């Protein structure tokens, strides 16, 4: 998924089919080849924190009766929230992607970029801004009162968490689905339309089935994100398992780790389910013909209203709230943007490096899963993906314990290197799927010719494969970068002494009630994220240009 910039040569359908036939026999071959061992080694590194969680849970033992009493409630709430958020994000993300790529929606070029933007807001900042906006004197409160609606007295619980998390995660679905829609051959749709299907029927019967891997892949990321999310559910008072992990991390460590194990098992089950249901994605064979756009007709107005509503909730309201806080502080000379320059540089630096490293590290896994599928590559891929479901706090603790107790690597403790490793493990899953589709986008025929002309595997990779994969890899790195920019719990624990990032600044000022600083630091974070995303990722991607 997340294969949005696909300006690459299209593989021939035959190439794809041939490739599958050739590799389908591979499942039975040996586990001990260099590439499989490399894949397993990478998988083992990613599985480190998960292994730590299980080991700690067993070692702490703990009272099973207590776990049986404390876990089911939060577990049920976690499942509810994760399912609701991922389903609604899948629907909204897919619908928006279809609107901006396949219809005559007015201003679709603007919407294409704008609808990505809610992704740059950390969900706890978004939730905090929303809470402030809904309070008397808040902007939402004002707006609702003006149109005669009584604003809700409480903004918390399941519905609030559902709204907030959906709003800030649907781009995980929107991006890959939009990319898939751009890359998809339109001949089938055209035939369907010629045979008299309405555009709605064409969407459900012809287009949607072809989008399945992209929707499922994006939906899985949303699900795992919701599983490990802490800041927003904490603010919104929805007691999920992650909240139990945090609340009892000191007072009842056995319960805390037992809850983390439950999260892990849940994540594994969902990842396995997704992998069995997503279906195989066909090679992207882009049509050169002009895309036929559905006429929205009377639907133009509701479509525009829908897009506006999403953007209003996901960007305009939170940013306005934050700006109100910041502006009050600046006006009174209490906060200054100069204090935020160093944190902004630190944040951007670790994020860019983590992004590049994540793509490099998951590349061997992606090569293995797409070109030489084998049980070993499945294991590696699953352990990369599950890293996203483990809360940042737990990953940080795991790496702390592992580095402190392993003589060879103990020098890494409290260095930015370890912090970056934590980001790579936590967010590698976001790079994996895009990297996989980047690998898939290299035509088989080209690889065959390369093999004849250039015997060196490494040179072939850099001269033939890499240039073709680059747009997909940039997209993969982009998601890791954005997530790293927003990360808080692992950053707080693992940062080297004296190293502050924008999120740690936001957290510290919010905790202490210095809203002016919170607002300003959040706006700087949004600006840095948007700028980096634009220059490094979006500018050349098809989601913007196509």
């Amino acid at each position, binding site marked *: 998924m997340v294969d949005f910039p696909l300006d690459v040569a299209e593989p021939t359908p035959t190439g794809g089919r041939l490739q599958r036939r050739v590799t389908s026999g591979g499942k039975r071959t040996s586990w001990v080849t260099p590439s499989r061992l490399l894949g397993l080694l990478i998988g083992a590194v990613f599985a480190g924190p998960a292994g730590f969680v299980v080991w700690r849970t067993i070692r702490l033992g703990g009272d099973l009766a207590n776990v049986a009493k404390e876990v089911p409630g939060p577990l049920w709430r976690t499942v509810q929230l994760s399912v609701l958020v991922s389903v609604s994000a899948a629907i909204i993300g897919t619908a928006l992607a279809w609107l901006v790529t396949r219809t005559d929606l007015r201003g679709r070029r603007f919407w294409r970029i704008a609808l990505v933007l809610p992704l740059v807001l950390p969900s706890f900042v978004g939730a905090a801004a929303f809470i402030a906006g809904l*309070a008397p004197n808040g902007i939402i409160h004002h707006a609702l009162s003006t149109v005669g609606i009584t604003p809700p007295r409480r903004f918390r619980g399941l519905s609030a968490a559902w709204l907030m998390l959906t709003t800030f995660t649907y781009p995980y679905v929107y991006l890959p689905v939009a990319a898939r829609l751009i890359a998809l051959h339109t001949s089938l749709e055209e035939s369907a339309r010629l045979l008299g299907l309405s555009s709605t029927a064409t969407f459900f019967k012809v287009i949607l089935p072809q989008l399945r891997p992209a929707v499922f892949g994006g939906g899985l990321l949303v699900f795992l994100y919701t599983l490990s999310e802490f800041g927003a559910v*904490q603010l919104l008072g929805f007691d999920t398992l992650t909240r139990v992990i945090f609340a009892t991390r000191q007072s009842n460590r056995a319960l805390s780790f037992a809850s983390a194990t439950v999260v892990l098992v849940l994540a594994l089950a969902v990842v396995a389910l997704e992998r069995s249901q997503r279906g195989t994605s066909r090679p992207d064979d882009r049509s050169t013909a002009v895309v036929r756009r559905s006429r929205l007709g009377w639907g133009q107005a509701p479509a525009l209203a829908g897009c506006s509503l999403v953007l209003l909730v996901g960007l305009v309201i939170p940013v306005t709230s934050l700006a109100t806080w910041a502006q009050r502080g600046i006006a009174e000379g209490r906060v200054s943007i100069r204090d935020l320059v160093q944190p902004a540089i630190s944040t951007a630096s670790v994020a860019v490096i983590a992004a590049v490293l994540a793509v490099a590290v998951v590349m061997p896994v992606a090569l293995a899963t797409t070109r030489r599928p084998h049980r070993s590559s499945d294991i590696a891929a699953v352990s990369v993906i599950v890293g996203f479901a483990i809360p940042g706090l737990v990953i940080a603790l795991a790496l702390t314990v592992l580095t402190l107790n392993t003589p060879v690597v103990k020098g890494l403790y409290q260095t930015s290197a370890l912090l970056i490793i934590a980001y790579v493990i936590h967010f590698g899953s976001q790079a994996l799927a895009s990297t996989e589709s980047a690998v898939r986008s290299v035509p088989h025929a080209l690889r065959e010719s390369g093999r004849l002309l250039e015997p060196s595997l490494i040179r072939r990779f850099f001269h033939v494969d890499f240039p073709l994969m680059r747009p997909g890899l940039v997209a993969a790195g982009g998601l890791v970068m954005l997530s790293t920019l927003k990360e808080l719990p692992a950053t707080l624990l693992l940062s080297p*002494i004296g190293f502050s990032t924008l999120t740690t600044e936001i957290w510290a000022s919010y905790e*202490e009630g210095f809203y002016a600083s919170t607002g300003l630091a959040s706006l700087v974070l949004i600006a840095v994220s948007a700028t980096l995303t634009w220059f490094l990722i979006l500018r050349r991607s098809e989601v913007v240009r196509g």
Partner: protein
Amino acid sequence: MLRSHSYVRVAVTLAAISLIAASCGGDDADITLYSGRSDNLIQPIIDEFEAASGLSVEVKYGDSADLALLIDEEGEAGKTAADVFLSQSPGSMGFLEERGRLGAVPEPTLALVPDHVRDDGGSWVGFSGRQRVLVYNTDAVDPADLPSSVFDMTDPQWKGRIGIAPGNGSFQDFVTAMRATQGDDVTLEFLKALNANDPVLYANNSAIVAAVGRGEVDTGLTNHYYNYRALAENPNQPSTNHVFGPDDPGAVLIITGAAILAGSDNAKLAAQLIDFLLGSSGQQYFATETFEYPLAIGESPANNVPPINFSSDVSNAGGIAFEDLAGGLEATRALIAESGLES
């Protein structure tokens, strides 16, 4: 014009350079401090200490509970990095004490504060205090109506008019104090009655004070200094503190403590830092900048903060000894959950 991959290359190079530059600075300071209090509120006084003593201090900031976990893991591995720990939460200090991670604070340092705000065993010393209060909106509440005990906030006249933050550490400390003085049954009864009185729930203290200031809710249970801080940002905010009567658990004093870690190889310098925090400039910094109660003998709070007599008689001041609050946090959390406040 640069192509996009050149941008990536330039960005990666710049990022690497700035990281290397960042990681070269500031190693091997004389004292390493893990601070559960954020840098806005502590760094200025650390800077003053560095200037006055000629020693260098490196500080790792974070949540008290997270830092305590880190210190525990470091201690477990025999690689304690920190010399001093400042804890905002009595629970975190209690956790480390229980895990045997705290060393001894020297006698002369302990003697700077009254008995009631330091550990009996001498493993930590309080340096500033926060009192639990009821903040109220002066436009919406007549001070004459305000009760002298937090138990009266379950009265029907406060239905839907009280803001609380049940997930917050200091609310939990307050409940622990109530358990220590009144027992679990009375505490659970109170929490249930409070929940039945339709309280408005918030994520933390500052959210409560902001909400009271905006008139979103009439009153709120919080720490005393949040309102002074809010007033410093917005002097026109119609909110003020009400302190419940003496002996009331609603007026408990929560202590921010300092400890020297068992694994520290700089215990002498560490004590020097704590002495500075307990000295006049340190104490007045907390009094005037964070509006907390200074704890050292002979220091008084900021002008607009009403003095409390915690040093002569703890129970009269509604204060509670630190060790009664420490530990038992899980039981507190369970009571809060049982009352229905946290679901």
